[in-house]
């Protein structure tokens, strides 16, 4: 065979892509946050009130190919009646440059405590949702998300 070049292996393409993605992160990514910042944001928002795991569900892909558009749905178990309803829902991403993502106010007029949106995730990390109920109790859940190509611009 006259052509001595080695055949193109898919591994090479993948490696190049990984290098490109790495360069992108090196150039454009500001320092990411830390779990401590989420803890600080939680303290700032809710003070020292106890936050209990449960009553809230976070639907988010375990593997997000594009960190710029990650669909997320938050559902809270609540009758949404005048006596017992969800007052607010808060979303945090611990390793984004800014840990706060979204704050939503709800009430009995919503009927269903469910909110969906699309968020940016800079790197693979844990996403946390916290809800405040009308009786003042706080509930939380968290989900780990693996991000293939980070939102270079979270």
């Amino acid at each position, binding site marked *: 065979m006259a052509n001595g070049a080695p055949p193109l292996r898919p591994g090479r393409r993948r490696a190049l892509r990984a290098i490109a993605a790495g360069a992108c992160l090196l150039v454009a990514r500001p320092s990411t946050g830390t779990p401590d910042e989420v803890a600080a944001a939680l303290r700032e928002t809710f003070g020292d009130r106890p936050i209990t795991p449960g009553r809230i569900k976070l639907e988010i892909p375990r593997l997000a190919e594009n960190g710029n558009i990650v669909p997320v749905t938050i559902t809270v178990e609540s009758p949404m009646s005048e006596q017992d309803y969800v007052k607010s829902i808060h979303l945090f991403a611990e390793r984004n440059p800014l840990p706060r*993502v*979204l704050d939503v106010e709800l009430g009995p*007029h919503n009927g*269903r405590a*469910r909110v969906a*949106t*699309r968020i940016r995730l800079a790197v693979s990390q844990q996403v946390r949702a916290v809800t405040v109920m009308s009786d003042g109790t706080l509930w939380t859940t968290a989900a780990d998300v693996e991000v293939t190509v980070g939102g270079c611009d979270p």
Partner: protein
Amino acid sequence: MSRFGKVWVRLSENPKRGEPVEIRAMVVHPMESGFRLDNVGHPIPRHIVSTFTCAYGGKDVFRAKLHPAISTNPYFVFYVVATQSADLLFTWTDDRGEVATHNVRLEVA
């Protein structure tokens, strides 16, 4: 210059009185996070939609505070109990004071 573009709103069909209606709302906006650099390495200034509200018959029924981690063209799905036939007024405000509004009539049989 306003960076708001087209607004897209959909309601679930045949709302029944006393039951929640699903509302899906999106507005075109760059949601520039403030963390990106332009092609000569200068940071691109932050420019995001900071609040989104929905009023039903003049009363706020959904209020959201957005941070830079909300994706380009912010999109929300939420619910409102259909109590009467009334207007739904959607309002997006960005951090430069620009406003986009949209009105949809919710007809309850």
